[in-house]
């Protein structure tokens, strides 16, 4: 009797179901299965169920009853989690006005996943969705599973084996899903709901991904993307055709009615209206969506003479090596790493040097040189940066997260802080899930400091902390942004303070200079950096590799400074290009169009 509410179209042939009309337009089914079962039990004289459980069953049903069409019932089921007003408004609009088919096009960082989760949960609570398929890039599968399970109490499963598809809610990568043997299975299933994250990857209708998704059979459907149009209005058309074919007319009609040039729309009002029926876009700065400020402070440090000696030693060692061997990229990177490590801590560089020593042939002339450097390390008995860090932490007198690139530094800092009576806990990529959670709990509770080597990865939400120290900086700007993003995100109540420890007269000074002064990384709008780097790295080696090459090849400080400044200039140029590549009004036209589609919802959210 507890058969799930299968919301599929009823098959009319079942004998124990009567099917008539209640109203000219309404089918009516009266299920008589219960009666047959009761009759059977009467004939067999039982078995009979318990009266208390009978009453409890009715109470359970009363509690779960969906009393109205319009309310968001799922909110009562989620006492541990409080979505933002714009997320609730968005979910409400998808459910009540869009019939459950929509493009969620919020800007990066506003919680599209949360909105999708709310919609899914609501449909599940109402018994309108049982079977759901969520297709995301492979790297996001586990993150989705965790979010759905922890935040929404939805038993989502990551697709691993073929039999995983039997589960009700499955998260999978689209590249797996479209391949055999999965493909046939999925195409033969009717999904109550389909969610696709990073849907802009479906902009081209000739790709196998697009065609696969188009063939899936689904009732409700959400497409998530922050960039519904990247280059061409056709992309938008293709996305919408996946969701609601004909919403913008046929392909030729669309071209005739709405497109002047690939990035220049016409009849904007009409197009915007058609768009807002299927797309919701919240923006930063919309009412109710508030990001706090980032306050960046660079802290210049002068190395002690011993540290400086080590740095110089390592630098000249690196330079010699580069000149001797016409180094390939890989070995160049690892050599330069030595220099970066010296700037962080002697522990970090020590490990690398010892490993290098072991790897070098016993009769190599390099061995004594390496050992000489190791001897240099012995001479150092204080870490200028670590001392400054302690001073800073005492001054801040609040929760602080410290990021470093190196395990060695992390271990050293833990030790160093402990001896100075500071309660610090580590966090790194290699830790198991449980241990990570435990460390987070400790940091939330007793520990004042978290020392992390890993900024990416899911699950680190540190809104309760608003001070971070970059003990050293990654050379990849995206990774810097990831670090900041752990703390500076929606829900952060305070301005976020970012401290960069920067040793003068070293490569670090150049890096900080590049990231901070040149491209003003720390104050870029969230999401802007992606575009700049995407374009920058299109034709060249990654920015990290370019910097490494410069550092290795540049003869002296002045030359390095010049070349870095050149790099900064070209990044800046790209940035202006990104913003103004197209004539201004065209850029505006598309942006206005997309943003206009979201206007109403953000007004609602701000109320």
């Amino acid at each position: 009797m507890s058969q799930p509410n299968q919301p599929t179209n009823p098959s009319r042939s079942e004998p124990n179901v009567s099917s008539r009309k209640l109203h000219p337009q309404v089918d009516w089914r009266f299920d008589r299965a219960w009666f047959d079962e009761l009759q059977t039990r009467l004939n067999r004289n039982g078995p009979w169920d318990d009266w208390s459980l009978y009453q409890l069953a009715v109470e359970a049903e009363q509690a779960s009853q969906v009393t109205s069409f319009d309310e968001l019932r799922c909110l009562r089921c989620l006492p541990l989690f409080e979505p933002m007003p714009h997320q609730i408004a968005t979910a409400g609009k998808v459910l009540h006005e869009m019939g459950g088919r929509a493009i969620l096009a919020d800007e990066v960082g506003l919680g599209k996943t949360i909105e999708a989760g709310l919609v899914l949960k609501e449909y599940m609570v109402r018994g309108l969705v049982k079977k759901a398929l969520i297709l995301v890039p492979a790297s996001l599968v586990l993150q989705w599973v965790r979010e759905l399970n922890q935040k929404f109490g939805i038993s989502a499963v990551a697709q691993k084996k073929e039999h995983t598809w039997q589960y009700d809610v499955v998260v999978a990568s689209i590249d797996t899903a479209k391949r055999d043997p999965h493909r046939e299975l999925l195409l033969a299933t009717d999904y109550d709901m389909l969610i696709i994250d990073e849907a802009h990857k479906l902009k081209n209708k000739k790709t196998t991904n697009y065609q696969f998704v188009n063939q899936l059979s689904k009732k409700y459907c959400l497409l998530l993307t922050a960039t519904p149009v990247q280059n061409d209005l056709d992309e938008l058309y293709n996305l919408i055709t996946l969701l609601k074919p004909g919403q913008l007319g046929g392909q030729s009609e669309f071209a005739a009615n709405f497109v002047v040039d690939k990035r220049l729309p016409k009849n904007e009002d009409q197009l915007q209206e058609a768009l807002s029926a299927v797309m919701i876009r919240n923006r930063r700065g919309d009412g109710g969506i508030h990001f706090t400020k980032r306050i960046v402070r660079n802290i210049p440090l002068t190395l002690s003479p011993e540290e400086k000696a080590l740095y110089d030693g390592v630098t000249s060692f690196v330079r010699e090596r580069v000149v001797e061997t016409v180094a390939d990229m890989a070995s160049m990177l690892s050599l330069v790493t030595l220099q970066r490590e010296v700037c962080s801590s002697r522990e970090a560089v020590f490990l690398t040097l010892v490993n290098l020593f072991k790897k070098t042939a016993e009769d190599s002339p390099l061995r004594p040189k390496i050992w000489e450097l190791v001897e240099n390390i012995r001479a150092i008995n204080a870490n200028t940066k670590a001392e400054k860090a302690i001073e800073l932490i005492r001054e801040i007198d609040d929760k602080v997260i410290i990021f470093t690139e190196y395990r060695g530094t992390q271990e050293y800092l833990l030790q160093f802080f402990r001896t100075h009576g500071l309660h610090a806990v580590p966090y790194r990529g290699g830790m198991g899930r449980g241990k990570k959670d435990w460390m987070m709990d400790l940091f939330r509770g007793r520990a004042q400091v978290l020392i992390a080597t890993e900024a990416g990865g899911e699950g680190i939400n540190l809104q309760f902390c608003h001070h971070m120290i970059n003990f050293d900086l990654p050379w990849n700007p995206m990774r810097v942004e990831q670090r900041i993003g752990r703390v500076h995100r929606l829900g952060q109540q305070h301005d976020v303070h970012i401290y960069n420890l920067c040793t003068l007269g070293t490569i670090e000074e150049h890096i900080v200079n590049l990231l901070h002064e040149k491209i003003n990384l720390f104050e870029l709008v969230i999401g802007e950096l992606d575009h700049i780097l995407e374009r920058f790295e299109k034709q060249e080696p990654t920015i990290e590799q370019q910097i490494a090459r410069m550092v290795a090849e540049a003869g002296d400080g002045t030359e390095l400074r010049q070349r870095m400044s050149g790099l900064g200039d070209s990044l800046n140029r790209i940035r202006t290009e990104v913003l103004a590549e197209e004539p201004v009004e065209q850029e505006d036209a598309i942006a206005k169009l997309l943003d206009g589609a979201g206007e109403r919802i953000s007004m609602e959210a701000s109320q």
Partner: protein
Amino acid sequence: MNDRQVHKFVQRFLEATDCTILEKSPAHFKVKLSPYADRSLTNRPYYWSFVDRTGAEPETMSMLLVTDRTKYDALEAANEAQQEAQAAEAAPSLSSAAEAALGRSFGFVHGTMNTIRMPREEMFFGSRRLDQLFAASQAGGSYVYLFQEPERKHALPHDSTPYTAWLGVNMKVEFACDRKREELHSFGVSLASGQCVERFHDRLLDLKMTPKLPPNVHVTKNGISLGKAASAIEQTLERKLKQYDYGWAVQANEQLDEELARIRHYYEPLIQSALEEQKPAIMEQFDKRQAEIRWQFEPRVTASAVNCGIFHLAGID
């Protein structure tokens, strides 16, 4: 359901399924499950099939069910603080030293470590455990056959009270298109007279019920068949539902037509201009899209039973 209602529900479920409550407060239960509850809550089908096949004595699980987490956590913190204070007062005694020594030689585990594993479960409305309790109540409370308990003992031993058999059923009615709402209806039909009453379940809640035929009671002869009674319920419900406002359904149908027109407008020219060999594929896709839209918007009302039973009530009705 608020926290208190959840708490009460959990307690009644535990009692109804014969679980042993080891400890309780307004914020939690510590409980050793009964075999019935273990089967329906712990998701251990292999274990239970082992027990069933070998006839081994089952070892059921224990659980900590927290119905009010803030209150429970505060309580726990207070307890812990108290224990720590006590431990600090008591000087390192002989017994703890002895215990440590025993531990070293015999692998003896200290008392506090020796307790049964008790996984903590949050019970709030919407939590998976509570949903499981809901489902288990439904599974174990679907079909009943009950008698009203007489209110007092009869003065005369040979006096017999007449009882009437009723068919009672609780129905869930679902009104659905792309959205949905539900109603619950409870019907009872007297098998003696055929009269049909609503809110029958409420009437039952005022009575005491027992699965056994009480002494000095006789059941009057049924005047109508069970099938007739069921039809009466169906007709009553249908008549009632026909009075409802179906504006929502008209709206859904309008939307449905609009959506169908929209994809027709998209696919028909596409099919016309397509190459002959591509046509079947596009037609197939067109059909699929139409089916999806019907699936999404078509208004429908369905009624199904939550649970039902035969109830023997005092009196001739």
